């Protein structure tokens, strides 16, 4: 029943040690009582993670990466997940723009864009969704017209995470008419300081101002900033979304486990909250099982990618499984912390604040990167191949 043990995870051990030494209190998401890190501190931490080998792991060395495999990436991400580490400021750069540029960019573009993503010189945002074209990307209306000066972009984007603190936007625009749907879409790397770009922050239900609307008024984009051919935008974008659904935030299942660990640890700091916890023990055991099965999704995916397989629609599976399991956990956790006594101690207050934030944030998890309904449609149509007519 056994096979030879795999590499025990030297890379993971390195990552663990580094995090123990560098993830200081103000960066930790389990310590609401400490002064939270500033944006500059977060960026500095993220740049240090890269230098230590915890980011850009699979990117070629020529572009600032470490030239290793997804296996090391997975090992490092297990440790990042288990730690109460902040979410990456530049995840769009590392997980979307970077892979796209590596796939369709020119050598000049790769040398220009990729290293600055890892050094945090360039934070990226993603200009895909539009008002009226949320999950239905093919309905987007932002136009890019070719002129003698290059491209001129007009339109509006929404849900552009971190746009106001970004240097580059991965922009999807239309060269033809709306009725073309997914034909005639083009991708650009647009400098956010280009004249004609305005951003307006949207306050989320968590109270944060992380999302933005981005308005493009006669924004001139140089031909050199076009990624791939004008008609490749859709296929590249689809690939982005497939990657996003499948491998984005690879640490997620371990972070999820870490959140559950935090809740349990905190409840154990007070006999009254431990008594409350006991009433939810079976529910949490089911959550724990789901976390473990989620790891199966992630590790299977890594093996498939390592074997050179296309991901395609099966990227919907981990996204769907994770988002629903995590929402379920968040609901239980929020119910438990709501029962904490009025005179709860600091460990309980820390856990309470974190679980409440997770609960609110989790509402978006079945919406972004394709709603649950869209994931189910994809699975029914493209994996099960269910007919709609005889």
């Amino acid at each position, binding site marked *: *029943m*056994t*096979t*030879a*043990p*795999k590499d*025990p*995870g030297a890379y993971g051990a390195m990552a663990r040690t580094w995090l123990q030494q560098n993830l200081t209190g103000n960066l*930790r998401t*389990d310590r609401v009582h400490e002064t939270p890190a500033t944006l500059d501190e977060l960026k500095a931490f993220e740049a240090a993670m890269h230098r230590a080998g915890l980011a850009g792991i699979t990117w070629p060395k020529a572009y600032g990466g470490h030239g290793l495999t997804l296996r090391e990436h997975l090992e490092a991400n297990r440790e990042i997940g*288990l*730690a*109460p580490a902040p979410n990456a400021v530049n995840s769009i750069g590392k997980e979307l723009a970077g892979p796209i540029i590596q796939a369709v960019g020119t050598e000049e573009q790769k040398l220009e864009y990729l290293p600055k993503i890892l050094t945090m010189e360039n934070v990226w945002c993603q200009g895909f969704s539009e008002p009226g074209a949320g999950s239905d990307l093919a309905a987007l209306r932002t136009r890019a017209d070719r002129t003698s000066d290059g491209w001129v972009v007009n339109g509006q984007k929404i849900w552009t995470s971190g746009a106001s603190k970004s240097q580059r936007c991965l922009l999807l625009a239309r060269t033809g008419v709306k009725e073309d749907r997914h034909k005639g879409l083009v991708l650009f790397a647009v400098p956010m300081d280009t004249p004609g770009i305005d951003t307006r922050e949207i306050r989320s239900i968590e109270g944060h101002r992380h999302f933005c609307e981005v308005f493009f008024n006669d924004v001139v984009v140089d031909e050199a900033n076009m990624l791939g051919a004008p008609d490749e935008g859709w296929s590249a974008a689809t690939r982005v979304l497939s990657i996003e659904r499948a491998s984005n935030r690879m640490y997620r299942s371990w972070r999820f*486990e*870490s959140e559950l*660990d*935090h809740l*349990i*640890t*905190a*409840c*154990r*700091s*007070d*006999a009254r909250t*431990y008594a409350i916890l*006991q009433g939810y*023990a*079976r529910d*949490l*055991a*089911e959550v*724990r*099982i*789901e976390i*473990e*099965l989620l*790891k*199966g*999704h992630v*590790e*299977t995916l890594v093996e498939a990618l390592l074997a050179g397989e296309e991901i395609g629609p*099966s990227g919907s*599976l981990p996204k*769907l*499984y994770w988002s629903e399991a995590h929402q379920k956990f968040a609901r239980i956790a929020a119910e438990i912390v709501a029962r904490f006594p009025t005179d709860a101690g600091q*460990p309980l207050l820390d856990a309470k604040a974190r679980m409440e934030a997770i609960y609110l944030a989790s509402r978006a998890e079945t919406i972004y990167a394709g709603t649950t309904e869209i*994931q*189910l*449609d994809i*699975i*029914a*149509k493209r*994996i*099960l191949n*269910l*007919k*709609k*007519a*005889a």
Partner: protein
Amino acid sequence: MFDDLDPKDFEETAREVMEACAATDDLAARASTLAEAGLLGVIAPEAVGGLGLPARFAVPILEAAGAGLLAFPLIEAMLLSEALAHAHPEMASALVSGETIATIAWLGTEADGIVAGAPRGEGAEHLLVFRADGSAVLTETAGLSAQLSDQLDTDFASATLRLAGPLTGLELSPDAVATLKDNAQILRAAFIAGSTASCLKQACDLAQDRVQFGRLLSSYQALRHRLARDLLALETMRMGVTRALSNPGEAAPMARRAAWLGAARMGPACAESAIQVFGGMGFTWEVPLHRHLRQMRTLAIQGQAAASVSALAETLISGSSNQWYEEVPDVV
């Protein structure tokens, strides 16, 4: 290792064998058919006539058995032939060759005087009975009275047996029993995955054939989403099994437990879902969905899945191994 073989190579053979087994009422004939195709000994050592392959090669065979509603103690044959191979090679050989049939009473111990949850306990010649001290004894069934354990069981025919005094037979050590029970989790999960796959396929086929209110059933989004969720459950089970088999590090015990408990939870739910897709037809004896539901519930009972979730719950809230929270005081 085993580069020339792929577990998928067994799929077609296994399906044909399960069809042949379903065509006969004779338990011994099923044993021969399974043995001739090499399926009983796929993971048993070559010394006892097995193929000596890693456990992942058993997965397609168990999936085919689940899908084919195999009425034979296949999981038990695999587990016992491996467990007995070194200390009792003759018995292991007899099991691998299908000459004799053994089963396991998964519920109760010798001291209770009554044991239950023994698949085909009425037809097997040998019965493994657990003891309160963790060891087990392989006794002969001759002379023991057997009855069906559970009205929700049909094909598996899980038996309850009354014991007549202390048992004698080949002995398994507590360590060997612990390994056997641990390995059983994955074999059962694979079996359930096969059963689930069959339910899902039947539901998809029906939905693409049946017209309701002038439209193909499979054109209704509610039904498409139901089937998509069932596919997600199936793939989650399968990935859980794959992971549990390829990940023997410190995460392995939890990986095995999750693969098993996840399958035990999701499998019956997928059978229930397929019954709903079939509508009234799904509620008939003739359509085999209820047999899949019974089969999966029976496996869950034999593996004591619900009790195991409770045990996991206890362990889970008894502490955390996450080093990042070590500073939080533990007062309970």
